[in-house]
């Protein structure tokens, strides 16, 4: 792929690309700005509620008030950080083939290019690179801002804000890009493809979530219900029966007694929570990111197959 081909490919989507890049730069800069302001307060971890159990000092209260004001001010940046990767995926993915089919320019380009695969690669890869860089930048910006907002939490070992930060956010955006390219290629019309891509990706997102939760439920560990940590990912409630066996809470009828105990079948039982410990965050998020990466590859592969077979509009 020549530099000229890359430049021309990007030129065909320069408005969308410029808009996404500019918005991403602003959002990332905003994230770094607010994160720096939060860091600059140097709020001691002992000031955060629940850290010591003691009543916060007046100095802590003053710092926390300022901390929460900045957090509130930066809330709009979080919307950008969470939404822009998806916007990049769909807005840059749909038109790559759909707009060419819609405007009939594929008749020219496919008659000039002996290999439609080479044409598809030349059109898709430069745009994919922009989506990738924007999504990674936004995901890391989100990671940084979330970490600054929760200095008492080790974000690398916590399911806090799962899916809205880090590589998983970027992988989701790239999966949406693959889905959008595929749907644009099939429909050959940009606006309907844009709408359908959003709907289809919502379904994909839900499907992956359900499938991954099913896997995680098999990997869950049980903690006493009152010992669950905020960094853990809670999956479902359960009870340990007198014979040591565990049943899910939604499978049994329970009696709640005035002393706070829970009874099943006339016997007291222990309340448990099935969780994925926060320490497994990196592994779990990485696995889900890989699944979305696979979806992106499948989407682009299917789009390539459609390009190879379809009429040029």
């Amino acid at each position, binding site marked *: 792929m*020549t530099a*000229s*081909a890359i430049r*021309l490919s990007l*030129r*065909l989507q*320069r408005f969308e690309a410029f808009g996404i890049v500019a918005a991403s730069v602003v959002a990332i800069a905003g994230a770094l700005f607010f994160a720096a302001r939060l860091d600059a307060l140097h709020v001691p971890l002992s000031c955060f509620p629940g850290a010591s159990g003691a009543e916060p000092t007046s100095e802590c209260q003053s710092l926390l008030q300022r901390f929460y004001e900045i957090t509130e001010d930066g809330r709009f940046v979080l919307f950008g950080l969470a939404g822009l990767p998806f916007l990049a995926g769909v807005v840059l993915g749909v038109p790559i083939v759909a707009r060419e089919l819609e*405007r*009939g*320019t*594929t*008749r*020219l*380009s*496919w*008659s*000039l*290019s*002996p*290999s439609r695969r*080479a*044409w598809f690669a*030349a059109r898709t890869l430069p745009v994919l690179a922009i989506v990738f860089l924007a999504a990674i930048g936004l995901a890391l910006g989100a990671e940084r801002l979330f970490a600054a907002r929760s200095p008492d939490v080790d974000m690398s070992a916590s399911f806090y804000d799962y899916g809205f930060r880090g590589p998983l956010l970027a992988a989701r955006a790239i999966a949406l890009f693959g889905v959008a390219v595929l749907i644009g290629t099939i429909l050959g019309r940009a606006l309907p493809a844009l709408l359908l891509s959003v709907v289809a990706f919502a379904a994909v997102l839900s499907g992956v979530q359900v499938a991954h939760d099913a896997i995680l439920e098999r990997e869950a560990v049980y903690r006493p219900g009152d010992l669950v940590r905020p960094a853990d990912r809670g999956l479902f409630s359960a009870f340990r029966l007198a014979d040591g066996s565990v049943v899910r809470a939604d499978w049994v009828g329970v009696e709640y007694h005035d002393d706070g105990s829970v009874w099943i079948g006339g016997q007291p039982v222990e309340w448990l929570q099935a969780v994925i410990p926060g320490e497994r965050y990196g592994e779990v998020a990485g696995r889900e990111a890989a699944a979305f990466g696979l979806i992106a590859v499948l989407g682009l592969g299917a789009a390539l197959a459609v390009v190879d077979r379809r*009429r*040029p509009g």
Partner: protein
Amino acid sequence: MAVAFEAHGLGKRYRRKVWALRDIELEVPEGSITALVGPNGAGKSTLIKAGIGFERPTTGRLLVAGIDPQKDRPAAVRRVGYVPQAASLYRELTVEEHVRLAASLRSGFDSELARLRLEQLDIPLDSRADELSGGQQAQIGLALALGTRAPVLLLDEPLASLDPLARREFLHVLVDAVGSEGHTALLSSHVITDIEQACDRLLVLGGGRKLLDLSIAGALSEHRVIDVSGGMLGVAGASVGGSGGRTIGVFPGPTGERLALLATTEAVGRPATLEELVLGHLAAGRPSRLRPLDAGVAA
């Protein structure tokens, strides 16, 4: 005779079960400019698109410079310069960027040749495609096709939206390029009067079938026209004179008279123009539109 474009038993049926092409047998000799003529829906575009692998034949096969586009589309595309019906240019790109795009997509693309052709026509290379006239856009399409230096040029009604002067200029460039570079061209068009000067062969399609495939000079010398509106009625297929000539078809003349196209070398009526020749064969290809005629043919 070397053949640049050939079809054998070629048929194309779309999903609506409509045959766009049926049983097409043809051989386009190398170095010729063949006019592909027929009404809307005759199958002209389908035939040309099949030549560059944009349509898959339902039956038969088609070879472009000896290559079957269905079996080896990349090789077939390398041998074809294609000019689509609408110019199909990128409106965001300048003319120069189109040349660069073509060079990036097609190895061996002759950018200098394309630029030279465009400069000869005073088409500014720094203009955006959407700022140019329809005629200039069509010329860009042709210049890009010529820049491929492909042996076969397939032109899908590029004249349709051009004014008469732009049509002449387009055809002049085409004839010049074919003469100097040795291309073979298949040019589909509705505009019969212009192609007479540019083309040396005529292929008439109607209802998806081949109705006529001859050199233009030969076709004109073998057809004549008579006026059958004044009681001298003609019957399609009836014999004419004593040398085996026959009536091809009856069609309306420019002032409402009824004309019959005759396949004969005898000196009956007057010589047919190319337009009358095409109209007569199209009328023959659409018998349901003919009014029943009941008398013999004047010899």
